[in-house]
């Protein structure tokens, strides 16, 4: 990694406070999938403009931009196991295809589960919503199994 990682006991609580701030200020459940969904609903003419979640989405993108401006570069090079496994022009096409399909699974799955790592994993669990706990257990277990499967075949 290019830069030091923020300690978990500082970064984690700040994310938790963001969940609290969203409820305290706006009475909203913080969730990145809801933010993406509002953007898609706007593009596909299902809603007239961007609201709270759309503004949160813009904030997320700006957060990435501010980080790069302050730190000078992203925390990492390449793209994990994908750039370690696939090389050259053909490899890049494979990586783009894999990321595109993964993105579809992430978007569709998170909408079906009514939340992702932030909406269910943080906000839902913090409200002791049983549906979020089931979803969180399922996505962590699935992701751990799939990560070991990828390690076994690469």
């Amino acid at each position: 990694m290019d830069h030091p990682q923020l300690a978990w006991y500082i970064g984690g609580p700040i994310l938790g406070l963001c969940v609290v701030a969203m409820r305290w200020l706006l009475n909203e459940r913080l969730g990145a999938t809801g933010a993406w969904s509002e953007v898609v609903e706007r593009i596909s003419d299902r809603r007239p403009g961007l609201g709270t979640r759309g503004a949160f989405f813009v904030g997320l993108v700006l957060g990435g931009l501010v980080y790069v401006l302050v730190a000078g570069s992203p925390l990492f090079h390449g793209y994990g196991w994908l750039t370690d496994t696939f090389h050259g022009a053909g490899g890049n096409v494979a990586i783009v295809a894999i990321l595109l399909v993964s993105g579809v699974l992430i978007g569709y799955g998170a909408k079906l589960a009514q939340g992702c790592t932030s909406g269910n994993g943080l906000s839902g669990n913090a409200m002791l919503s049983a549906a979020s706990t089931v979803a969180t257990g399922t996505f962590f277990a699935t992701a751990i199994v799939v990560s070991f499967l990828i390690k076994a075949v690469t």
Partner: protein
Amino acid sequence: MNLATRLAALAVGLVFGGVLCWSGMSSPEVLRAGLLLENSYLFLFFAAALSTAFVGLRLLNRFGTRSVITDEPLACPTQRPERRHVTGAAIFGVGWAVADVCPGPIATQLGQGIAYGIPTALGLMLGVWLYLRREQRAVAAPAPSVRAVTLPDPA
């Protein structure tokens, strides 16, 4: 929907996104090391975030009554688990493990100018769109069992 509401949501997103980058949550290397149980950072980070949110929301519900900007009674919606939460989370989990990134960090990758974030973001939007389309069709064409209720009683 006023300016203050939007600005507040944007500010929370900015902090959330910045911390996701600084903590390495937008880095596929960090995510993968966590999911392969080689590094405890992901789980410690997640547990610290969740416990802070839990305590914070508890305190809010105890001392706060209405939201500061939108002036609404503070809600704490909970839901019973259904099949969709398992199926959806399993589908999500596969994508999450392959791309080693989840929706918040994908948005921050775009802000960081990481080109590999573009196909993941386009896929995510396509997945959300497919879900919205399916949901819309389900509303337009009610399930047969709903129509059966309207049939006249044979007796």
